[in-house]
């Protein structure tokens, strides 16, 4: 195992980039606020794959990459809880969770 890495780093970055683009697609095009939130989770996952890949391919001795990934997962959990609570409240008031129908402040 102390030889060269079994694969180069580029495939990991490729997966991460594609995942991020898919997350952007979900955020830009879905009407349901919950689906928009899922797109955000996909983007956070893409960033996490990058953090861990650079941690490992940077030698694996500095733990900053994994610390960042742990923090991102923590923030994702907090963000999902608050966002879903807000979505529930919006649903009670507007009877919909489609983000293009919640336009009370539109002039």
């Amino acid at each position: 195992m102390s030889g060269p890495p079994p694969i180069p780093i580029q495939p990991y970055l490729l997966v991460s980039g594609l995942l991020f683009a898919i997350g952007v697609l979900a955020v830009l095009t879905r009407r349901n606020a919950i689906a928009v939130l899922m797109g955000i989770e996909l983007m956070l996952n893409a960033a996490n794959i990058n953090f861990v890949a650079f941690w490992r391919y940077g030698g694996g001795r500095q733990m900053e990459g994994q610390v960042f990934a742990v923090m991102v997962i923590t923030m994702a959990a907090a963000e999902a809880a608050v966002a879903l609570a807000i979505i529930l409240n919006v649903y009670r008031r507007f009877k919909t969770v489609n983000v293009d129908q919640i336009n009370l402040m539109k002039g």
Partner: protein
Amino acid sequence: MIASLWHDLVRSFLAGSFWYQVAFLCFALGTVIPAALVALSRNIVHSALWLLPCLASTAGLYLLLGAELLAAIQILVYCGGIVVLILFVIMLTHGVGHPDVRVHNQQLAWGLVAAMALAGILLHLLRGEPWHVALSWAPPSDVTARLADALLRPYVLAFEVASVILLAAMIGAIVIARAERSE
């Protein structure tokens, strides 16, 4: 450009060890394809369920990279917590699972263009960079112990702030989601 990028990628990829490549391919496809289905599925419940294999395959990628604790956290927090929470909220907001409801807004074409442009730019950058990575794949020993060490020594402040944020988010979510009293 894409073709030559693909050629470079395949050639350098095939230089590695076989079973690692097979496992990587499985997890990579298991991450990207369910993610695309999350973004494009017509049923919101199916979207949420497709999130499960996507996040589990990401945990597999962490395992391949040697971050076992992160893989476990990923399964516990994402698959066990966040997806279940999302499914709960989908079931609490009815009328979204109808097949005749439009699931994408009118910017679907532009969104596709933007996402593809972003992917193209990322692939281009990926190709242009030499990526000076460590040449030896020496297994980092006791990764979990060193992660705990890093979290509780140099990054203890961030760790404590994160726990306070989790507490604030928990209380905030309870207050926001509580049913409004009539008086």
